[in-house]
């Protein structure tokens, strides 16, 4: 089928083109290459929308377009494109956010007179390219390659202001911590290849499908002697290592708050659409594989729930506006993991979408505030910005309502859906999920609290510093993205109002469910119906009958309670810090549960001695053998060379003796005597 799908690779390649243009010609272009980036991401967005249209009229595409390593009696390594409802939706999200971030950068970088703009826009272009290619990857290895590229781009952009001390260090930390997770991912990719001989995501020859057949005993695969279920759990958890690193889940979340050292539009891109989203998207992409293993699902759900709670409590005490947002990101991705682990595939992808909109909005809003505050990020120096910057205020409020999960903003529908899924599957025979649900539920309260603490401190009350009294104005290129995202954050939740659909019995409200529940043909393995089937058959997930009203009211009530508490404490003309009331918990929270210290301790007193021992082994044993061999040669050489006296008759004697000896030996062996 010719048509729009032939242009699918162009969605990713356009930003790559803008990367090249910005890198090589950016100096000579107006705006330092920004225009190329805007045009390219705009083109990607257009193509993604057209692809989306083609998918909605029933088109699907899986195409291998380049075999970059031909296997001889082994697997081929390929690059390919997989366009299905999930990836076409994600393509729109990524290209839209990237487009708006490019626009916003005009206000945040160009108007602020930054230098090094070509490098900045080249980084943005490469980042967008990597993420788009990752989204449309049709096999795990290609996904891994672009997963790594995404990590590299985040390194380049977080360390954009490399002349200051903090950003390069934060960039290195982000790179190393995610690399630690990716190490497991790489082993997982190799394990998938070794087990199934393919890494395709979709189709009858795909690895999730082969795994399903292996468990049913219809198709034998090499599981290294384990039970198939056990082995698939191990492989799934290995891949999950990469997900935990990239999506900043506990215990590899520590890089993300430090990544705030990068320019704010980059933070928006990282948190909303690219880097952090990649992890969760990967789990959704190979959900057919995870659904086979109840253990892996339970671990995902627990990590998610725990991360959601822990990150939310840390967000409560932060002073910088971007730090609060960073912890909220960790927490929200925890919810997505919880949703995926609890069997709420639709709920998690839904939250991935709504979160992309409202988190991009919040970061860009924070960027607008930071411009206004002359790059001061401390919320205790702000206050009263509501009247000075109404566009930013109202859009930021829309994003905050969505983040806190207040009806009817986007976050409410998706987060509530995740919690509901966890609850019904927990009640329906998987009681472990109830623990994860409880953590997620408590986190709702903290989310409401820190979100509105941030809003009140930033925008309400009296200005607490000179810059807050006379803020710097922002232009259309800042306001336009905010307005677009502000509207989306308000209404995006309406595409999938499952509670309303359940109550009225009218399933037209569940557009996203319908979207993901497609008639598949070859790609049937990626449909929601198949996932439901797998979850029930293999993971033993059954949904209990439960009205959505009570759990919905519960989480809404908790969010409102958090917001109300924040309103009581901080919506006053001269707010004061109330953190002292937390007692000793305050220090623990300020220090982020000593996670950084713990990891440094781990590095210094476990890894370092270990590597010292390895170094000793290397220097002593391995090098010792090598050096020993050479010193034996040297010593024997220095002794044996003494026979070279320079006296010719000696040589002649030796020659003659040698010849004689040879003759004697030959004679003895030949039996002459």
């Amino acid at each position, binding site marked *: 089928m010719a048509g729009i799908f032939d242009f699918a690779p162009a969605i990713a390649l356009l930003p790559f083109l803008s990367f090249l243009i910005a890198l090589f010609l950016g100096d000579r272009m107006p705006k330092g290459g920004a225009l190329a980036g805007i045009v390219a991401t705009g083109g990607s967005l257009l193509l993604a929308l057209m692809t989306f249209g083609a998918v909605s009229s029933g088109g699907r595409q899986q195409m291998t377009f380049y075999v970059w390593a031909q296997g001889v009696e082994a697997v081929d390594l390929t690059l390919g494109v997989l366009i299905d409802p999930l990836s076409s939706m994600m393509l729109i999200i990524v290209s839209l956010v990237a487009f708006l971030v490019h626009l916003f950068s005009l206000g945040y970088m160009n108007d602020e007179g930054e230098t090094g703009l070509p490098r900045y826009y080249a980084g943005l272009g490469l980042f967008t390219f990597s993420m788009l290619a990752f989204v449309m990857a049709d096999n795990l290895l290609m996904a891994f390659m672009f997963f790594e590229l995404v990590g590299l781009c985040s390194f380049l952009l977080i360390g954009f202001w490399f002349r200051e001390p903090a950003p390069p260090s934060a960039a290195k930390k982000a790179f190393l911590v995610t690399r630690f997770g990716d190490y497991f991912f790489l082993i997982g990719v190799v394990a998938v290849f070794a087990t199934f001989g393919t890494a395709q995501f979709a189709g009858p020859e795909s690895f999730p499908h082969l795994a399903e057949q292996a468990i049913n005993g219809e198709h034998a695969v090499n599981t290294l002697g384990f039970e198939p279920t056990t082995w698939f759990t191990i492989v799934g958890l290995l891949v999950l290592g990469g997900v935990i690193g990239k999506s900043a889940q506990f215990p590899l979340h520590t890089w993300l708050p430090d990544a705030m050292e990068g320019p704010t539009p980059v933070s928006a891109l990282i948190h909303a659409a690219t880097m952090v989203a990649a992890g969760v998207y990967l789990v959704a992409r190979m959900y057919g594989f995870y659904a086979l293993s109840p253990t892996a699902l339970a671990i995902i759900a627990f990590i998610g729930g725990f991360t959601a709670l822990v990150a939310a409590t840390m967000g409560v005490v932060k002073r910088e506006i971007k730090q609060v947002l960073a912890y909220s990101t960790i927490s929200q991705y925890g919810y997505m993991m919880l949703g995926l682990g609890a069997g709420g595939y639709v709920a998690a992808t839904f939250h991935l979408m709504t979160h992309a909109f409202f988190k991009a909005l919040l970061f860009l809003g924070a960027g607008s505030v930071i411009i206004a505050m002359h790059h001061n990020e401390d919320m205790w120096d702000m206050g009263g910005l509501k009247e000075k910057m109404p566009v930013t205020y109202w859009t930021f409020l829309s994003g905050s309502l969505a983040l806190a999960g207040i009806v009817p903003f986007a976050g409410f529908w998706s987060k509530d859906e995740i919690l509901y899924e966890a609850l019904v599957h927990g009640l329906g025979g998987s009681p472990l999920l109830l623990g994860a649900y409880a953590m997620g539920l408590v986190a709702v309260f903290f989310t409401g609290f820190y979100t509105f603490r941030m809003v009140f401190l930033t925008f309400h009350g009296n200005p607490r510093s000179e810059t807050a009294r006379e803020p710097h104005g922002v232009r259309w290129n800042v306001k336009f993205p905010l307005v677009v995202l502000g509207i989306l954050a308000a209404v995006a939740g309406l595409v999938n109002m499952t509670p309303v659909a359940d109550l009225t019995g009218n399933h037209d409200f569940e557009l996203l469910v319908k979207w993901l529940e497609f008639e598949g043909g070859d790609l049937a393995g990626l449909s929601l119906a198949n996932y439901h089937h797998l979850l029930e058959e293999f993971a033993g997930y059954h949904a209990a009958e439960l009205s959505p009203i009570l759990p919905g009211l519960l989480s809404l009530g908790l969010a409102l309670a958090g917001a109300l508490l924040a309103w009581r404490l901080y919506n006053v003309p001269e707010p004061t810090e109330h953190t002292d009331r937390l007692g000793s918990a305050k220090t623990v929270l300020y220090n982020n549960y000593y996670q950084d210290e713990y990891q440094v301790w781990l590095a210094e007193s476990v890894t370092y001695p270990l590597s010292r021992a390895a170094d000793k082994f290397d220097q002593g044993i391995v090098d010792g053998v090598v050096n020993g061999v050479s010193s034996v040669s040297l010593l024997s050489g220095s002794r044996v*060379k*003494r026979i*070279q*006296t*320079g*006296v*010719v*008759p000696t040589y*002649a*004697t030796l020659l*003659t003796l040698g010849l004689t000896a040879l003759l004697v030996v030959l004679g003895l062996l030949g039996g002459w005597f």
Partner: protein
Amino acid sequence: MVPPQWYLLLATAVFCIGVLGILTRRNALIFLMSVELMLNAANINLVYFSQFWGNVTGQTFSLFTLALAAAEVAIGIGIILVLYRNFDDVDVTKAVTMRW
């Protein structure tokens, strides 16, 4: 016809004279002569067995050996001249600079 062992004995005798010359004498010219003796001991064998088997290949080879010996003498004399120029002597035990 003279039996082959006589020829072999003659060749061995000539060869051993050459070897002894090299082992016992110190004059480089004597060295050269001894080498010639050893070469010609081989030639005796070649020529005799050529005639013994009625085949001219051996005699042809002895001609090659003579040519080779001539070339060797030319080089040998040259070396001895250089030796004399550098060490004022043709005693081979004096020239001991080429060692470890």
